Protein backbone atom coordinates (compact mmCIF):
# COMPACT_ATOMS: atom_id res chain seq x y z
CA UNK A 1 0.00 0.00 0.00
CA UNK A 2 1.46 3.36 -0.92
CA UNK A 3 2.33 6.20 1.37
CA UNK A 4 -0.41 8.54 0.22
CA UNK A 5 -3.02 5.94 0.93
CA UNK A 6 -1.57 5.22 4.33
CA UNK A 7 -1.76 8.91 5.12
CA UNK A 8 -5.32 9.16 3.86
CA UNK A 9 -6.59 6.20 5.81
CA UNK A 10 -4.52 6.75 8.90
CA UNK A 11 -5.69 5.28 12.16
CA UNK A 12 -7.39 8.40 13.46
CA UNK A 13 -9.50 8.72 10.32
CA UNK A 14 -10.54 5.09 10.40
CA UNK A 15 -11.33 5.41 14.08
CA UNK A 16 -13.55 8.47 13.56
CA UNK A 17 -15.26 6.83 10.62
CA UNK A 18 -16.02 3.69 12.63
CA UNK A 19 -16.95 5.51 15.80
CA UNK A 20 -18.16 8.92 14.78
CA UNK A 21 -18.41 11.38 17.67
CA UNK A 22 -21.66 13.32 18.16
CA UNK A 23 -23.49 11.09 15.75
CA UNK A 24 -27.24 11.57 15.92
CA UNK A 25 -29.61 14.50 16.14
CA UNK A 26 -30.14 17.35 18.62
CA UNK A 27 -33.67 17.82 19.79
CA UNK A 28 -32.93 21.38 20.90
CA UNK A 29 -30.94 22.45 17.81
CA UNK A 30 -31.59 25.99 16.64
CA UNK A 31 -29.54 25.69 13.45
CA UNK A 32 -29.67 22.94 10.94
CA UNK A 33 -28.58 22.19 7.40
CA UNK A 34 -28.28 19.28 5.04
CA UNK A 35 -25.35 18.60 2.79
CA UNK A 36 -25.61 16.47 -0.29
CA UNK A 37 -23.05 15.43 -2.84
CA UNK A 38 -25.05 14.62 -5.96
CA UNK A 39 -22.03 13.02 -7.61
CA UNK A 40 -21.73 10.23 -5.07
CA UNK A 41 -24.97 10.38 -3.12
CA UNK A 42 -23.34 11.12 0.22
CA UNK A 43 -25.57 12.94 2.68
CA UNK A 44 -25.02 14.68 5.96
CA UNK A 45 -27.28 16.63 8.31
CA UNK A 46 -25.80 19.01 10.83
CA UNK A 47 -27.54 20.13 14.03
CA UNK A 48 -26.22 23.03 16.06
CA UNK A 49 -27.24 24.68 19.24
CA UNK A 50 -25.84 28.19 19.27
CA UNK A 51 -26.34 30.19 22.44
CA UNK A 52 -26.91 33.89 22.96
CA UNK A 53 -23.18 34.54 23.05
CA UNK A 54 -22.71 33.06 19.61
CA UNK A 55 -21.07 30.00 21.01
CA UNK A 56 -21.75 26.52 19.60
CA UNK A 57 -23.02 24.86 22.72
CA UNK A 58 -23.83 21.56 21.17
CA UNK A 59 -23.48 19.84 17.84
CA UNK A 60 -24.54 16.61 16.21
CA UNK A 61 -24.60 15.11 12.75
CA UNK A 62 -26.02 12.16 10.94
CA UNK A 63 -25.81 10.84 7.44
CA UNK A 64 -24.43 8.28 5.11
CA UNK A 65 -21.09 8.49 3.46
CA UNK A 66 -17.62 7.23 2.94
CA UNK A 67 -14.95 7.00 5.63
CA UNK A 68 -13.53 10.36 4.63
CA UNK A 69 -16.80 12.25 4.88
CA UNK A 70 -17.86 10.61 8.14
CA UNK A 71 -14.44 11.10 9.74
CA UNK A 72 -14.37 14.68 8.59
CA UNK A 73 -17.79 15.35 10.09
CA UNK A 74 -16.80 13.66 13.31
CA UNK A 75 -13.52 15.57 13.62
CA UNK A 76 -15.38 18.76 12.87
CA UNK A 77 -17.95 18.12 15.55
CA UNK A 78 -15.23 17.56 18.11
CA UNK A 79 -13.43 20.74 17.19
CA UNK A 80 -16.41 23.02 16.97
CA UNK A 81 -18.20 22.11 20.14
CA UNK A 82 -17.72 24.99 22.52
CA UNK A 83 -16.25 27.34 19.94
CA UNK A 84 -17.53 30.75 18.98
CA UNK A 85 -19.22 31.07 15.58
CA UNK A 86 -16.47 33.27 14.16
CA UNK A 87 -13.80 30.82 15.28
CA UNK A 88 -15.72 28.09 13.46
CA UNK A 89 -15.48 30.10 10.29
CA UNK A 90 -11.73 30.55 10.65
CA UNK A 91 -11.37 26.84 11.27
CA UNK A 92 -13.33 26.08 8.15
CA UNK A 93 -11.07 28.34 6.09
CA UNK A 94 -8.00 26.63 7.49
CA UNK A 95 -9.46 23.22 6.91
CA UNK A 96 -10.31 24.00 3.27
CA UNK A 97 -6.74 25.15 2.78
CA UNK A 98 -5.29 22.00 4.27
CA UNK A 99 -7.34 19.59 2.21
CA UNK A 100 -6.38 21.44 -0.94
CA UNK A 101 -2.70 21.15 -0.10
CA UNK A 102 -2.26 24.55 1.54
CA UNK A 103 -0.64 25.52 4.83
CA UNK A 104 -3.57 26.51 6.99
CA UNK A 105 -1.51 29.50 8.17
CA UNK A 106 -4.43 31.09 10.02
CA UNK A 107 -4.87 28.08 12.29
CA UNK A 108 -3.43 27.87 15.77
CA UNK A 109 -0.78 25.20 16.16
CA UNK A 110 -3.12 22.95 18.11
CA UNK A 111 -5.91 23.25 15.60
CA UNK A 112 -3.57 22.65 12.71
CA UNK A 113 -2.17 19.57 14.33
CA UNK A 114 -5.64 18.24 14.94
CA UNK A 115 -6.89 18.93 11.42
CA UNK A 116 -3.75 17.65 9.78
CA UNK A 117 -5.18 14.16 10.00
CA UNK A 118 -7.36 15.23 7.06
CA UNK A 119 -4.54 16.77 5.02
CA UNK A 120 -3.87 13.43 3.34
CA UNK A 121 -6.96 14.08 1.21
CA UNK A 122 -5.03 16.73 -0.71
CA UNK A 123 -3.30 13.97 -2.66
CA UNK A 124 -6.74 12.73 -3.78
CA UNK A 125 -8.44 15.59 -5.61
CA UNK A 126 -11.51 13.52 -6.43
CA UNK A 127 -12.08 12.96 -2.72
CA UNK A 128 -11.81 16.54 -1.52
CA UNK A 129 -15.55 17.00 -1.82
CA UNK A 130 -16.10 14.08 0.53
CA UNK A 131 -13.93 15.81 3.10
CA UNK A 132 -15.58 19.18 2.77
CA UNK A 133 -19.22 18.07 2.68
CA UNK A 134 -19.87 18.37 6.41
CA UNK A 135 -18.02 21.66 6.67
CA UNK A 136 -20.08 23.22 3.92
CA UNK A 137 -23.24 21.99 5.61
CA UNK A 138 -22.03 23.47 8.88
CA UNK A 139 -21.47 26.79 7.12
CA UNK A 140 -25.00 26.74 5.69
CA UNK A 141 -26.37 25.92 9.10
CA UNK A 142 -24.59 28.88 10.66
CA UNK A 143 -25.56 31.24 7.88
CA UNK A 144 -29.18 30.18 7.88
CA UNK A 145 -31.36 32.90 9.39
CA UNK A 146 -32.21 30.64 12.27
CA UNK A 147 -35.76 30.12 11.13
CA UNK A 148 -35.97 28.32 7.84
CA UNK A 149 -33.32 25.83 8.82
CA UNK A 150 -34.19 25.64 12.51
CA UNK A 151 -36.13 22.79 13.97
Amino acid at each position, binding site marked *: *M*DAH*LRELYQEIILDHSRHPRHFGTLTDANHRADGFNPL*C*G*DKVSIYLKVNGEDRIEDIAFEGKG*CAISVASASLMSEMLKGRKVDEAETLMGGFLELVKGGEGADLSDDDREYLEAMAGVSAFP*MRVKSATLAWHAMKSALEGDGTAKTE
Partner: protein
Amino acid sequence: MSALSLKPHLYDVEAIRQDFPILAREVHGRPLVYLDNAASAQKPKQVMNKITDFVTTEYSNVHRGVHFLSAAATDRYEAARGRVKTFLNAAHEDEIVWTRGGTEAINLVASSFLSPRLEPGDEIVLSVMEHHSNIVPWHFLRERQGASLRWVDVSDDGELDPEDVARAIGPNTKFVAITHMSNVLGTHTALKEIVRIAHERGIPVLADGCQASVHGKVDVRDLDVDFYVMTGHKLYGPTGIGVLYARKAHLKAMRPYQGGGEMIREVTKANVTYAEPPMRFEAGTPPIIEAVGLAAALDYLDSIGRDAAAAHENALARRAEAKLKALNGVRLIGEARDKGPIVSFETIGIHAHDLATILDREGVAVRAGHHCAQVLMERCGVVATARASFGLYNTEAEVDALVDAVQIARKVFA
Protein backbone atom coordinates in the same frame (compact mmCIF):
# COMPACT_ATOMS: atom_id res chain seq x y z
CA MET B 1 2.79 -12.44 -32.27
CA SER B 2 1.61 -14.33 -29.28
CA ALA B 3 1.30 -18.08 -29.40
CA LEU B 4 -2.45 -17.72 -29.18
CA SER B 5 -2.70 -16.24 -32.62
CA LEU B 6 -1.73 -19.64 -34.00
CA LYS B 7 -5.02 -20.98 -32.72
CA PRO B 8 -7.67 -19.20 -34.70
CA HIS B 9 -10.56 -20.33 -32.49
CA LEU B 10 -9.18 -18.61 -29.46
CA TYR B 11 -9.95 -15.07 -28.59
CA ASP B 12 -6.57 -13.35 -28.84
CA VAL B 13 -6.95 -10.74 -26.15
CA GLU B 14 -3.25 -9.87 -26.11
CA ALA B 15 -3.38 -8.96 -29.78
CA ILE B 16 -6.54 -6.93 -29.18
CA ARG B 17 -4.86 -5.02 -26.38
CA GLN B 18 -2.23 -3.82 -28.83
CA ASP B 19 -4.98 -1.84 -30.54
CA PHE B 20 -5.53 0.25 -27.40
CA PRO B 21 -2.35 2.17 -26.56
CA ILE B 22 -3.77 3.55 -23.31
CA LEU B 23 -3.94 0.06 -21.84
CA ALA B 24 -0.16 -0.02 -21.75
CA ARG B 25 0.06 2.93 -19.41
CA GLU B 26 0.69 2.91 -15.70
CA VAL B 27 -1.31 4.55 -12.96
CA HIS B 28 0.36 5.33 -9.64
CA GLY B 29 3.24 3.14 -10.75
CA ARG B 30 0.97 0.13 -11.42
CA PRO B 31 -0.23 -1.20 -14.74
CA LEU B 32 -3.62 0.25 -15.58
CA VAL B 33 -6.49 -2.19 -15.07
CA TYR B 34 -9.39 -0.42 -16.74
CA LEU B 35 -12.67 -1.84 -15.48
CA ASP B 36 -14.86 1.20 -16.03
CA ASN B 37 -16.11 0.26 -19.46
CA ALA B 38 -19.78 0.71 -18.68
CA ALA B 39 -19.04 4.40 -18.11
CA SER B 40 -17.02 4.72 -21.29
CA ALA B 41 -14.84 2.47 -23.38
CA GLN B 42 -11.32 3.16 -24.62
CA LYS B 43 -10.78 3.77 -28.33
CA PRO B 44 -8.78 1.49 -30.63
CA LYS B 45 -6.08 2.85 -32.94
CA GLN B 46 -8.27 1.86 -35.86
CA VAL B 47 -10.85 4.47 -34.83
CA MET B 48 -8.33 7.22 -34.21
CA ASN B 49 -6.52 6.47 -37.44
CA LYS B 50 -9.74 6.58 -39.43
CA ILE B 51 -10.64 9.92 -37.88
CA THR B 52 -7.24 11.42 -38.58
CA ASP B 53 -7.25 10.01 -42.08
CA PHE B 54 -10.68 11.49 -42.76
CA VAL B 55 -9.74 14.90 -41.41
CA THR B 56 -6.48 14.85 -43.33
CA THR B 57 -7.91 13.91 -46.70
CA GLU B 58 -11.67 14.38 -47.05
CA TYR B 59 -13.07 16.69 -44.40
CA SER B 60 -15.68 19.31 -45.21
CA ASN B 61 -19.17 20.19 -44.16
CA VAL B 62 -21.76 17.85 -45.65
CA HIS B 63 -24.96 17.93 -47.70
CA ARG B 64 -25.09 21.43 -49.00
CA GLY B 65 -21.92 21.54 -51.04
CA VAL B 66 -21.26 20.97 -54.71
CA HIS B 67 -17.50 20.74 -54.41
CA PHE B 68 -15.40 17.61 -54.25
CA LEU B 69 -14.60 17.56 -50.55
CA SER B 70 -18.20 18.19 -49.64
CA ALA B 71 -19.26 15.26 -51.82
CA ALA B 72 -16.57 13.05 -50.33
CA ALA B 73 -17.45 13.99 -46.76
CA THR B 74 -21.15 13.49 -47.45
CA ASP B 75 -20.43 10.02 -48.83
CA ARG B 76 -18.42 9.07 -45.76
CA TYR B 77 -20.99 10.49 -43.43
CA GLU B 78 -23.96 8.79 -45.09
CA ALA B 79 -22.01 5.55 -45.37
CA ALA B 80 -21.63 5.72 -41.60
CA ARG B 81 -25.41 5.90 -41.31
CA GLY B 82 -25.62 2.82 -43.51
CA ARG B 83 -23.09 1.14 -41.24
CA VAL B 84 -25.33 1.72 -38.22
CA LYS B 85 -28.33 0.44 -40.13
CA THR B 86 -26.49 -2.83 -40.77
CA PHE B 87 -25.22 -2.98 -37.20
CA LEU B 88 -28.80 -2.87 -35.91
CA ASN B 89 -30.31 -4.75 -38.84
CA ALA B 90 -32.73 -1.90 -39.44
CA ALA B 91 -34.78 -1.93 -42.62
CA HIS B 92 -33.90 1.54 -43.92
CA GLU B 93 -31.04 3.98 -43.55
CA ASP B 94 -33.46 6.79 -42.96
CA GLU B 95 -34.57 5.11 -39.75
CA ILE B 96 -31.19 6.06 -38.28
CA VAL B 97 -31.02 9.50 -36.68
CA TRP B 98 -27.71 10.88 -35.41
CA THR B 99 -27.80 12.48 -32.00
CA ARG B 100 -25.10 13.79 -29.70
CA GLY B 101 -25.42 10.77 -27.44
CA GLY B 102 -27.79 8.24 -25.91
CA THR B 103 -29.26 10.89 -23.65
CA GLU B 104 -30.24 13.16 -26.51
CA ALA B 105 -31.83 10.27 -28.39
CA ILE B 106 -34.21 9.59 -25.49
CA ASN B 107 -34.98 13.29 -25.05
CA LEU B 108 -35.75 13.51 -28.74
CA VAL B 109 -38.36 10.77 -28.49
CA ALA B 110 -39.86 12.24 -25.32
CA SER B 111 -40.13 15.66 -26.89
CA SER B 112 -40.95 14.96 -30.55
CA PHE B 113 -42.90 11.74 -30.31
CA LEU B 114 -44.58 11.49 -26.93
CA SER B 115 -45.03 15.07 -25.74
CA PRO B 116 -47.46 16.15 -28.50
CA ARG B 117 -49.56 13.00 -27.94
CA LEU B 118 -49.81 13.31 -24.19
CA GLU B 119 -52.80 14.32 -22.07
CA PRO B 120 -52.64 14.97 -18.34
CA GLY B 121 -52.99 11.67 -16.50
CA ASP B 122 -51.47 9.61 -19.28
CA GLU B 123 -49.00 7.08 -18.03
CA ILE B 124 -45.47 6.12 -18.96
CA VAL B 125 -44.23 2.73 -17.84
CA LEU B 126 -40.57 2.33 -16.92
CA SER B 127 -38.47 0.10 -14.72
CA VAL B 128 -36.77 0.96 -11.45
CA MET B 129 -33.41 0.05 -12.95
CA GLU B 130 -33.39 2.75 -15.62
CA HIS B 131 -30.46 5.10 -16.03
CA HIS B 132 -31.29 8.76 -15.28
CA SER B 133 -31.20 9.37 -19.01
CA ASN B 134 -34.22 7.11 -19.33
CA ILE B 135 -35.98 8.63 -16.32
CA VAL B 136 -35.52 12.39 -16.32
CA PRO B 137 -36.95 13.03 -19.83
CA TRP B 138 -40.14 11.31 -18.63
CA HIS B 139 -40.11 13.28 -15.38
CA PHE B 140 -40.06 16.39 -17.60
CA LEU B 141 -43.35 15.20 -19.12
CA ARG B 142 -44.70 14.66 -15.63
CA GLU B 143 -43.62 18.15 -14.50
CA ARG B 144 -44.69 19.96 -17.64
CA GLN B 145 -47.66 18.00 -18.93
CA GLY B 146 -49.05 16.10 -15.99
CA ALA B 147 -48.04 12.64 -17.15
CA SER B 148 -47.61 10.04 -14.47
CA LEU B 149 -44.82 7.48 -14.21
CA ARG B 150 -45.57 3.84 -13.46
CA TRP B 151 -42.60 1.93 -12.15
CA VAL B 152 -41.94 -1.73 -12.81
CA ASP B 153 -40.00 -3.30 -9.96
CA VAL B 154 -37.22 -5.85 -10.29
CA SER B 155 -36.68 -8.93 -8.14
CA ASP B 156 -34.01 -9.01 -5.43
CA ASP B 157 -31.78 -10.75 -7.95
CA GLY B 158 -32.29 -7.89 -10.35
CA GLU B 159 -34.61 -9.63 -12.78
CA LEU B 160 -37.42 -7.92 -14.57
CA ASP B 161 -40.50 -10.05 -15.17
CA PRO B 162 -42.20 -9.12 -18.47
CA GLU B 163 -45.51 -9.98 -16.80
CA ASP B 164 -44.88 -7.07 -14.44
CA VAL B 165 -44.73 -4.82 -17.46
CA ALA B 166 -48.05 -6.29 -18.60
CA ARG B 167 -49.51 -5.54 -15.18
CA ALA B 168 -48.18 -1.98 -15.18
CA ILE B 169 -49.82 -1.16 -18.48
CA GLY B 170 -53.27 0.28 -17.94
CA PRO B 171 -55.88 2.08 -20.02
CA ASN B 172 -54.00 5.38 -19.73
CA THR B 173 -50.60 4.00 -20.63
CA LYS B 174 -49.12 5.75 -23.65
CA PHE B 175 -45.53 4.57 -23.67
CA VAL B 176 -43.08 2.01 -22.34
CA ALA B 177 -39.42 3.01 -21.82
CA ILE B 178 -37.20 0.19 -20.69
CA THR B 179 -33.55 -0.68 -20.63
CA HIS B 180 -32.19 -3.51 -22.75
CA MET B 181 -29.44 -4.01 -20.18
CA SER B 182 -28.98 -2.40 -16.80
CA ASN B 183 -25.79 -0.39 -16.37
CA VAL B 184 -25.69 -1.33 -12.67
CA LEU B 185 -27.04 -4.85 -12.37
CA GLY B 186 -25.95 -6.10 -15.76
CA THR B 187 -29.41 -7.61 -16.24
CA HIS B 188 -30.44 -8.28 -19.82
CA THR B 189 -34.15 -7.67 -20.09
CA ALA B 190 -36.47 -9.87 -22.13
CA LEU B 191 -36.98 -7.03 -24.56
CA LYS B 192 -38.61 -9.00 -27.35
CA GLU B 193 -41.20 -10.35 -24.95
CA ILE B 194 -41.79 -6.91 -23.41
CA VAL B 195 -42.32 -5.43 -26.87
CA ARG B 196 -44.77 -8.21 -27.70
CA ILE B 197 -46.74 -7.55 -24.54
CA ALA B 198 -46.81 -3.79 -25.10
CA HIS B 199 -47.75 -4.09 -28.76
CA GLU B 200 -50.62 -6.40 -27.90
CA ARG B 201 -51.94 -3.46 -25.95
CA GLY B 202 -51.06 -1.00 -28.68
CA ILE B 203 -48.27 0.71 -26.75
CA PRO B 204 -44.97 1.71 -28.39
CA VAL B 205 -41.69 0.80 -26.70
CA LEU B 206 -38.38 2.62 -26.45
CA ALA B 207 -35.41 0.47 -25.50
CA ASP B 208 -32.34 2.02 -23.95
CA GLY B 209 -29.61 0.01 -25.65
CA CYS B 210 -26.66 2.08 -24.45
CA GLN B 211 -25.24 -0.95 -22.64
CA ALA B 212 -26.81 -3.87 -24.48
CA SER B 213 -25.58 -2.74 -27.88
CA VAL B 214 -21.99 -3.05 -26.66
CA HIS B 215 -22.31 -6.66 -25.55
CA GLY B 216 -23.79 -8.82 -28.27
CA LYS B 217 -25.82 -8.52 -31.42
CA VAL B 218 -28.94 -6.41 -31.63
CA ASP B 219 -31.60 -6.91 -34.28
CA VAL B 220 -34.21 -4.18 -34.09
CA ARG B 221 -36.46 -5.93 -36.58
CA ASP B 222 -36.43 -9.16 -34.68
CA LEU B 223 -37.02 -7.27 -31.43
CA ASP B 224 -39.81 -5.39 -33.22
CA VAL B 225 -39.01 -2.40 -31.02
CA ASP B 226 -40.25 1.10 -31.91
CA PHE B 227 -37.23 3.09 -30.73
CA TYR B 228 -33.72 1.89 -29.93
CA VAL B 229 -30.95 4.02 -28.47
CA MET B 230 -27.15 3.69 -28.58
CA THR B 231 -24.29 5.93 -27.53
CA GLY B 232 -20.98 6.11 -29.41
CA HIS B 233 -18.43 6.41 -26.65
CA LYS B 234 -19.40 3.12 -25.00
CA LEU B 235 -19.11 1.35 -28.35
CA TYR B 236 -15.37 2.09 -28.57
CA GLY B 237 -16.23 5.15 -30.66
CA PRO B 238 -16.00 8.91 -30.13
CA THR B 239 -17.86 11.03 -27.63
CA GLY B 240 -20.35 13.52 -29.06
CA ILE B 241 -22.39 11.01 -31.02
CA GLY B 242 -25.30 8.70 -30.42
CA VAL B 243 -27.95 6.93 -32.43
CA LEU B 244 -31.69 6.85 -32.42
CA TYR B 245 -33.23 4.06 -34.40
CA ALA B 246 -36.93 4.67 -34.97
CA ARG B 247 -39.46 3.11 -37.26
CA LYS B 248 -40.06 5.09 -40.40
CA ALA B 249 -43.75 5.54 -39.67
CA HIS B 250 -42.98 7.03 -36.27
CA LEU B 251 -40.34 9.37 -37.64
CA LYS B 252 -42.68 10.59 -40.33
CA ALA B 253 -45.31 11.41 -37.72
CA MET B 254 -42.93 13.18 -35.34
CA ARG B 255 -42.50 16.89 -35.06
CA PRO B 256 -39.04 18.43 -35.36
CA TYR B 257 -36.76 18.46 -32.35
CA GLN B 258 -34.26 21.30 -32.72
CA GLY B 259 -34.59 24.01 -35.37
CA GLY B 260 -31.81 25.11 -37.68
CA GLY B 261 -30.02 24.39 -40.91
CA GLU B 262 -30.49 21.08 -42.76
CA MET B 263 -33.79 20.17 -41.08
CA ILE B 264 -35.96 22.54 -43.11
CA ARG B 265 -37.62 22.47 -46.47
CA GLU B 266 -38.31 26.15 -46.80
CA VAL B 267 -38.02 29.10 -44.44
CA THR B 268 -39.79 32.40 -44.97
CA LYS B 269 -40.47 35.29 -42.66
CA ALA B 270 -43.96 34.01 -42.04
CA ASN B 271 -43.52 30.29 -42.09
CA VAL B 272 -41.32 27.23 -42.08
CA THR B 273 -41.73 23.76 -43.54
CA TYR B 274 -39.62 20.79 -42.60
CA ALA B 275 -37.47 18.20 -44.32
CA GLU B 276 -38.25 14.50 -44.36
CA PRO B 277 -36.72 12.19 -41.74
CA PRO B 278 -34.00 11.62 -40.76
CA MET B 279 -32.87 15.16 -41.65
CA ARG B 280 -35.91 16.68 -39.93
CA PHE B 281 -34.29 15.66 -36.65
CA GLU B 282 -30.74 16.68 -37.46
CA ALA B 283 -30.63 20.45 -37.15
CA GLY B 284 -27.34 22.18 -37.85
CA THR B 285 -23.98 20.76 -38.71
CA PRO B 286 -24.07 17.13 -37.60
CA PRO B 287 -21.31 15.22 -35.80
CA ILE B 288 -19.56 14.47 -39.08
CA ILE B 289 -16.17 13.38 -37.79
CA GLU B 290 -17.80 11.46 -34.96
CA ALA B 291 -20.06 9.57 -37.38
CA VAL B 292 -17.05 8.47 -39.39
CA GLY B 293 -15.32 7.48 -36.15
CA LEU B 294 -18.34 5.55 -34.91
CA ALA B 295 -18.57 3.61 -38.17
CA ALA B 296 -14.91 2.65 -37.71
CA ALA B 297 -15.69 1.53 -34.16
CA LEU B 298 -18.55 -0.67 -35.36
CA ASP B 299 -16.23 -2.13 -37.99
CA TYR B 300 -13.73 -2.83 -35.26
CA LEU B 301 -16.30 -4.47 -33.00
CA ASP B 302 -17.53 -6.67 -35.82
CA SER B 303 -13.97 -7.57 -36.81
CA ILE B 304 -13.50 -8.99 -33.31
CA GLY B 305 -16.97 -10.50 -33.44
CA ARG B 306 -19.72 -9.20 -31.22
CA ASP B 307 -20.66 -12.63 -29.92
CA ALA B 308 -17.05 -13.60 -29.31
CA ALA B 309 -16.40 -10.37 -27.44
CA ALA B 310 -19.53 -10.83 -25.35
CA ALA B 311 -18.59 -14.41 -24.50
CA HIS B 312 -15.13 -13.28 -23.44
CA GLU B 313 -16.47 -10.40 -21.34
CA ASN B 314 -19.12 -12.53 -19.69
CA ALA B 315 -16.57 -15.17 -18.75
CA LEU B 316 -14.48 -12.48 -17.06
CA ALA B 317 -17.50 -11.16 -15.20
CA ARG B 318 -18.51 -14.61 -13.98
CA ARG B 319 -14.96 -15.21 -12.81
CA ALA B 320 -14.97 -11.90 -10.95
CA GLU B 321 -18.29 -12.71 -9.34
CA ALA B 322 -17.15 -16.11 -8.19
CA LYS B 323 -13.95 -14.74 -6.70
CA LEU B 324 -15.59 -11.77 -5.03
CA LYS B 325 -18.32 -13.94 -3.54
CA ALA B 326 -15.67 -16.20 -2.10
CA LEU B 327 -14.36 -13.28 -0.05
CA ASN B 328 -16.08 -12.65 3.22
CA GLY B 329 -18.16 -9.54 3.42
CA VAL B 330 -18.62 -8.89 -0.25
CA ARG B 331 -22.18 -8.71 -1.50
CA LEU B 332 -22.99 -8.84 -5.19
CA ILE B 333 -25.73 -6.50 -6.34
CA GLY B 334 -27.44 -8.01 -9.35
CA GLU B 335 -27.52 -11.75 -9.87
CA ALA B 336 -29.92 -12.14 -12.74
CA ARG B 337 -29.68 -15.34 -14.75
CA ASP B 338 -29.24 -13.47 -18.00
CA LYS B 339 -26.51 -11.04 -17.12
CA GLY B 340 -23.85 -9.14 -19.03
CA PRO B 341 -20.32 -8.18 -18.02
CA ILE B 342 -21.16 -5.73 -15.27
CA VAL B 343 -20.43 -6.58 -11.66
CA SER B 344 -21.74 -4.29 -8.94
CA PHE B 345 -20.88 -5.06 -5.38
CA GLU B 346 -20.74 -3.80 -1.87
CA THR B 347 -17.90 -4.45 0.55
CA ILE B 348 -19.35 -4.59 4.01
CA GLY B 349 -17.85 -1.86 6.17
CA ILE B 350 -16.12 -0.11 3.27
CA HIS B 351 -17.93 2.61 1.41
CA ALA B 352 -17.70 2.30 -2.37
CA HIS B 353 -15.75 5.53 -2.66
CA ASP B 354 -13.12 4.44 -0.20
CA LEU B 355 -12.88 1.12 -1.97
CA ALA B 356 -12.50 2.75 -5.37
CA THR B 357 -9.81 5.06 -4.01
CA ILE B 358 -7.79 2.14 -2.71
CA LEU B 359 -8.32 0.14 -5.90
CA ASP B 360 -7.18 3.12 -7.93
CA ARG B 361 -3.88 3.18 -6.06
CA GLU B 362 -3.44 -0.40 -7.19
CA GLY B 363 -4.05 0.70 -10.76
CA VAL B 364 -7.57 -0.74 -10.83
CA ALA B 365 -10.17 1.66 -12.23
CA VAL B 366 -13.72 0.90 -11.12
CA ARG B 367 -16.68 3.19 -10.80
CA ALA B 368 -18.18 3.97 -7.37
CA GLY B 369 -21.42 5.79 -6.80
CA HIS B 370 -25.03 5.69 -7.84
CA HIS B 371 -24.19 5.16 -11.52
CA CYS B 372 -26.95 7.58 -12.53
CA ALA B 373 -29.48 5.13 -11.16
CA GLN B 374 -30.67 6.63 -7.89
CA VAL B 375 -34.09 5.01 -8.14
CA LEU B 376 -32.39 1.63 -8.31
CA MET B 377 -30.04 2.49 -5.42
CA GLU B 378 -33.12 3.28 -3.34
CA ARG B 379 -34.69 -0.03 -4.40
CA CYS B 380 -31.55 -1.93 -3.42
CA GLY B 381 -31.20 -0.04 -0.16
CA VAL B 382 -27.71 1.26 -0.87
CA VAL B 383 -26.26 4.72 -1.36
CA ALA B 384 -23.56 3.63 -3.75
CA THR B 385 -22.00 0.51 -5.18
CA ALA B 386 -18.62 -0.30 -6.63
CA ARG B 387 -18.90 -1.48 -10.21
CA ALA B 388 -16.41 -3.39 -12.30
CA SER B 389 -17.44 -3.55 -15.95
CA PHE B 390 -15.58 -5.47 -18.61
CA GLY B 391 -14.67 -4.65 -22.16
CA LEU B 392 -13.36 -6.73 -25.01
CA TYR B 393 -9.76 -6.02 -24.04
CA ASN B 394 -9.87 -7.10 -20.41
CA THR B 395 -8.09 -10.22 -19.18
CA GLU B 396 -8.31 -12.87 -16.50
CA ALA B 397 -5.21 -11.40 -14.91
CA GLU B 398 -7.10 -8.13 -14.58
CA VAL B 399 -9.94 -9.89 -12.80
CA ASP B 400 -7.41 -11.26 -10.38
CA ALA B 401 -5.86 -7.82 -9.93
CA LEU B 402 -9.31 -6.53 -9.01
CA VAL B 403 -9.82 -9.24 -6.43
CA ASP B 404 -6.35 -8.74 -4.97
CA ALA B 405 -6.99 -5.01 -4.68
CA VAL B 406 -10.28 -5.61 -2.90
CA GLN B 407 -8.39 -7.72 -0.39
CA ILE B 408 -5.90 -4.95 0.18
CA ALA B 409 -8.79 -2.58 0.84
CA ARG B 410 -10.18 -5.01 3.35
CA LYS B 411 -6.84 -5.01 5.11
CA VAL B 412 -6.81 -1.22 5.29
CA PHE B 413 -10.22 -1.26 6.86
CA ALA B 414 -9.67 -4.40 8.93
